[in-house]
């Protein structure tokens, strides 16, 4: 008899303190009268992440082009750009071979005539199906990649008269 009573008490135990699970709280997307909108608050307009203004300012002026910057651009380009744009910038990277829409080649007249700022802006904001790389590529590295893209373009469009000793090396 005592055992049965004990078992009954044990069964009744989960019924105690239901308010532990049914507390008054704000669910993430629940309604609230404390402020307009849902419980999940949106950032006030004009909010800037800490350090974001400094990052943007860092990309305002292009760094001087030297061998180190171009080498850095080549390395960053190989990491972030070759999957789609290909090593030579023809827009024939591995992702494209797997069916992704092909980006334009860097060796078309429109992009040869484009200012370097255009490449910087495309890396920052994205273009077409390309998403923004602002979170992945630092502003200085974006300029380095833009400079390396110029080198890629020059490698396919070198004027023989402007490059000393080039005529002898051509077939």
């Amino acid at each position, binding site marked *: 008899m005592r055992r049965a009573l004990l078992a009954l008490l044990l069964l009744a135990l989960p019924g105690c303190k239901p308010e532990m699970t049914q507390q008054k709280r704000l669910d993430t997307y629940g309604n609230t009268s404390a402020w307009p909108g849902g419980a999940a608050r949106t950032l006030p307009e004009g909010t800037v992440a800490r350090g974001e203004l400094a990052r943007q300012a860092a990309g305002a002026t292009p760094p001087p082009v030297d061998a180190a910057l171009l080498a850095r651009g080549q390395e960053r380009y190989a990491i972030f750009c070759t999957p789609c744009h290909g*090593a030579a910038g023809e827009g024939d990277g591995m992702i494209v071979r797997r069916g992704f829409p092909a980006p334009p080649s860097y060796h078309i007249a429109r992009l040869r005539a484009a200012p370097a700022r255009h490449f910087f802006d495309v890396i920052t904001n994205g273009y077409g199906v390309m998403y923004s790389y602002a979170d992945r590529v630092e502003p200085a590295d974006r300029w380095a990649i833009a400079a390396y893209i110029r080198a890629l373009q020059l490698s396919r469009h070198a004027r023989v008269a402007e490059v000393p000793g080039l005529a002898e090396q051509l*077939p």
Partner: protein
Amino acid sequence: MTAPTDLSERRDRLRLRPWTILGVGLGTAALLAATLGGVMLLRHSAEWPQAGQPPSRFPAPRLQADPAADLQAFQAEQARALQGYDWVDREGGLARIPVARAMEILAGRGPAAYDPLEPAP
């Protein structure tokens, strides 16, 4: 010892109707003949695969048997595109040069390195 049971008293007499049996048999034979006739007709009217006809070729499965080797070949092909000298437009005086050479040239241009290679249209 018990007395033998007389089963014949409980057994129903089987009444066979010969014409029914004959009718079922003839009906089955007629159905068989109609089916065979239909198959023969179909064989004559429709295209029927001939025995001994060579099997048609089907496309090879698009499988990548050796992805590592394919990637190496792809990377080698991409790296080749960055090397070597060649003419692009002999009349226009345009040539293809290794990207390393192009980087050297650009590094020597100073602030003008970012400039577009062509004037804006």
